[in-house]
């Protein structure tokens, strides 16, 4: 191995510095994005990171790697080059640490292959990694923070029930055995608030502990979103008083708190506590007391 000249060491230091600068700028970019974003800073930091990385690579290639001049013969267009050595050996010769091996003409000029400078290689990987991570940050812009949105719906205490046509539902207008899809007033068509209103008789319903008074006059309401994969539980079989999800055939027993009796669903459909307000309309006592629909990791 030949002695590294002073000029060479100076170049190495400058390249190292540029790579560090690139890394810092990339991390800065990530921080700027995470703290809300700012267009001038984003552009300047991204530009700095790219420019420093670009300069480092160019300087490395120009000053620290064999730059010739090498001579290549030009053939007439009809002839072709003979097959070169396997790629694996080529790559090893040009980039690996085996700069003293055969075929490494670099040694004669006192310049080694890329792998001779492990410190710079590490800095390069770091800088490229930081830039890559910073470039991933904007993915976050694709959607809002889920937060608690999956835990609640638009049902509030006193929300009146409206049908898909936007009509209020009066207590008693639904006959025993009847079923209606309802939404909270002012939130018609909202996917997670869709609810099934079913009319049974008081004697039929098995009231679960803590749910006394949730089904005034035999009006019982369950979330229409299947607890399996989220399809609307659309089919009510009056004879058996079971709800069937047409997507994957989960069956829910309406009498027994919409307990799943068959199929892939594991949880009962959440029940919405109802009341009859002073004007005789059906309304909710409040939101569902558990997250509706299919399971998710954060669900307790």
């Amino acid at each position, binding site marked *: 191995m030949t002695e590294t000249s002073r000029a060479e060491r100076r170049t190495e230091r400058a390249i190292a510095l540029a790579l560090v600068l690139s890394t810092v700028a990339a991390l800065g970019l990530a921080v700027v994005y995470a703290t809300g974003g700012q267009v001038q800073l984003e552009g300047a930091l991204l530009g700095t990171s790219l420019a420093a990385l670009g300069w480092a690579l160019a300087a490395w290639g120009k000053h620290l790697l064999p730059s010739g001049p090498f001579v290549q013969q030009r*053939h*007439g*267009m*009809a*002839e*072709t080059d003979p097959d070169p050595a396997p790629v694996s050996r080529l790559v090893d010769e040009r980039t690996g640490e085996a700069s003293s091996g055969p075929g490494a003409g670099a040694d004669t000029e006192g310049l080694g292959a890329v792998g001779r400078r492990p410190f710079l290689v590490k800095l390069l990987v770091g800088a490229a990694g930081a830039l890559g991570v910073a470039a991933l940050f904007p*993915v*976050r812009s*694709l*959607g*809002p*923070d*889920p937060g608690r*949105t*999956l835990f609640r719906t638009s049902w509030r205490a006193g929300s009146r029930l409206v049908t*898909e046509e936007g009509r209020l539902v009066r207590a008693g207008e639904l006959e025993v055995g009847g079923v209606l*899809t309802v*939404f909270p007033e002012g939130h018609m*068509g*909202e*996917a*997670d608030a*869709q609810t099934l209103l079913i009319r049974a008789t008081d004697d039929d319903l098995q009231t679960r502990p803590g749910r006394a008074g949730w089904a005034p006059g035999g009006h019982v309401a369950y979330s*229409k979103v299947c607890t*399996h*994969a*989220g*399809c*609307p539980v*659309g*089919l009510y079989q009056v004879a058996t008083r079971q709800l069937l999800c*047409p*997507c*994957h*055939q989960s*069956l829910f027993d309406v009498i027994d708190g919409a307990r*799943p009796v*068959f*199929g*892939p*669903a*594991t*949880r009962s459909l959440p029940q919405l506590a109802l009341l009859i307000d002073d004007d005789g309309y059906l309304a909710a006592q409040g939101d569902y007391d558990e997250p509706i*629909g*299919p*399971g*998710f*990791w*954060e*669900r*307790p």
Partner: protein
Amino acid sequence: MIKRLNRWFDDRLGASGFVRTALNKVFPDHWSFMLGEVALYAFLLLLLTGIYLTFFFEPSLKEVVYHGAYRPLRGVEMSQAYESTLRLSFEVRAGMVMRQMHHWAAIVFLAAIVVHVGRVFFTGAFRRPREINWIVGCSLLVLAMANGFAGYSLPDDQLSGTGLRIAYSIALSIPLGGTWVAYLLFGGEFPADSIISRLFVIHVLILPALILGLLGAHMAILWRQKHTQFAGPGKAEDNVVGSRLWPSYALKSTGFFFLVSAVIAFLGGLAQVNPIWLYGPFRAADVSAASQPDWYVGWLDGALRVFPPWEIRAFGHTVPGVFFPGVLLPTVSFGLLFGWPFIEARFTRENDREYHLLNRPRERPVRTGIGAGVISFYVILFLAAGSDVLATVFDVSVTGLLVAFRVALLAVPPVVTYVTYRLCKEAGSLSDEEVAPPVVVRTPSGGYLVEGERHGNGGDGVDRADGIREKR
């Protein structure tokens, strides 16, 4: 004139060496080698018809009231995506045939890929040196499935909207980051308003570009490694026997492109597919019975139906039931598929050299048995996706049917594997002579002879007296 033109290009590009090799490239002839070509040509057709559709489709969820040519839906509120699909179907000339050809081409594309993968699997064409191309090919299968799903979700009809709802639930079920994955993909809580425009970009730009790139790699590697072939007279590990690219193979193959296109054109014109006007626009609270996806997603839907109701709750978290059939099953399935060449080589040690001669499936009872068993598993899942339709058609209870599917899923694949294994063993233990059945021939005088035992035969199997060819 043509001679001079060729000379001109020769002097400028110097491609004569390459072109000579290319024109002389030998392609073995076997019907099963055309399956990949079917996929390639279906993809070309997808590009052509797809470009046409993009001129008319509006990937927007903005609500509009329909006033178009299809009377039953007039006055109905719907998204622009749905409305523009109706318009390009009913009002754009040639729109309907283009859309149906596009859909049929997708169905054929996936079918051809699946059968092609089967061919490569059962003949051992994935063995060294073709492991990379196996992985590229499997990636193409995954991308094609994803793009098919993205494509048929675009019209925002009731059926595909239900499919998206299920896809959203599957995304939610991913442990740790599921809610984030779902929100970043859909742009918020279902049905967030950006999913259609995002699927559009995914469907017409991102996935097709990836498919095109990998397709190029697939063919380049095939070109470089040369085609495999079945053993036979003159065929060895170190040669390829078949027809040359130019002129015979090129003409046959181009002709084949037109034949594949013809089938898809017939289907597109004569066989209705995905009649979204019958499903209606998507409403989150509506659903129709018989909600089935396109055939290649059927196994996933079937898995969602038959999987038992397991939901794990521990440490204040939930692992949703959908996770097992919706995330774990596909991960394991594709993991095994991608890894098969390496798994098999661990046992057979067939990575010591290059293997260019194909196996007959009967020569490899274990591989063929496993492959057949796995196929039966996914066929049962596919059938299970039609449980509600089957229950209606055959007038049986849907719950009983699903229980039967659960049992079949566990019982049938081992049986299929064993039977296939035995059959391969039996077939493999017989030599070709013994396999050939005896042919009984009636002589002009009214007697019967077993062909081959007779005298006076030329010895080449052809009886010159009555022109009966001996069966082999």
